């Protein structure tokens, strides 16, 4: 991103239907392309937003269409923040997401529950908060990687 670019922000809403999630993903990919991020980084950021929106639809709204998921994206010189909000069931407190399995033993390999692990692995900061009826998952990625 050019050094002189000021902080910018975009908010968009989708209905809580899994068929709409790819639109949010493609929008994130477009913004990443505008910011000249690598293909790999763009994929990971799109993936995290898709996982967060999927979680909102499946868990906050019980996969019921007709509810709003808000996606707010703020970028600055230092990094990019994604805020995914819903007005459904609150997420129960969870420990650090882990992905433990024995690759040689198919029974132990997870088929679900990988979304939060992916988000936690990719993002530099992840915060879940509720204010009134609104629940927000805030995910922050710095342009200078921590690793």
């Amino acid at each position: 991103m050019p050094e002189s670019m000021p902080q910018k922000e975009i908010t968009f809403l989708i209905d809580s239907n899994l068929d709409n999630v790819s639109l949010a993903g493609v929008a994130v990919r477009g913004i990443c392309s505008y910011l000249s991020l690598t293909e790999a980084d763009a994929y990971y950021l799109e993936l995290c937003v898709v996982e967060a929106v999927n979680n909102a639809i499946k868990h906050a709204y019980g996969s019921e269409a007709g509810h709003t998921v808000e996606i707010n994206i703020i970028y600055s010189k230092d990094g990019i923040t994604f805020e995914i909000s819903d007005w459904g069931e609150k997420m129960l407190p969870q420990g650090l997401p882990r992905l433990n399995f024995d690759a040689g033993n198919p029974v132990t390999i997870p088929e679900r529950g990988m979304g939060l692990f992916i988000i936690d692995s990719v993002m530099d900061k992840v915060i879940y908060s509720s204010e009134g009826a609104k629940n927000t998952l805030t995910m922050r990625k710095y342009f200078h990687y921590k690793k």
Partner: protein
Amino acid sequence: MQIESIKAGDVLIVKPAEKRIDASVATEFKGKMVDWINEGNTKIILNLANVDFIDSSGLGAIVSSLKALGGNGDLVISGLQETVMGLFRLTRMNKVFQIFSSEQEAIQAL
């Protein structure tokens, strides 16, 4: 969801025609894979050359397909795009599945 399927001897080659395997199609994808397995296919190559995005639901559906084989046969992957390979590495699924750069290599290995 459009998926091409071709038999090469006793190997079934499955190639999704769409760019995304995500939560909106994961159940349908898994259903088709399980149908092919229930028809007696035990050597399966999943060619993901057309796929540029997989989320955890799509990945879970691929794992479910492997489990549906019940240890009787193998499901291997070919044609992974580099970005999608990143997801396999992040989740260590590259240790679960044999991954080949081409369909031909996968056929020879099976």
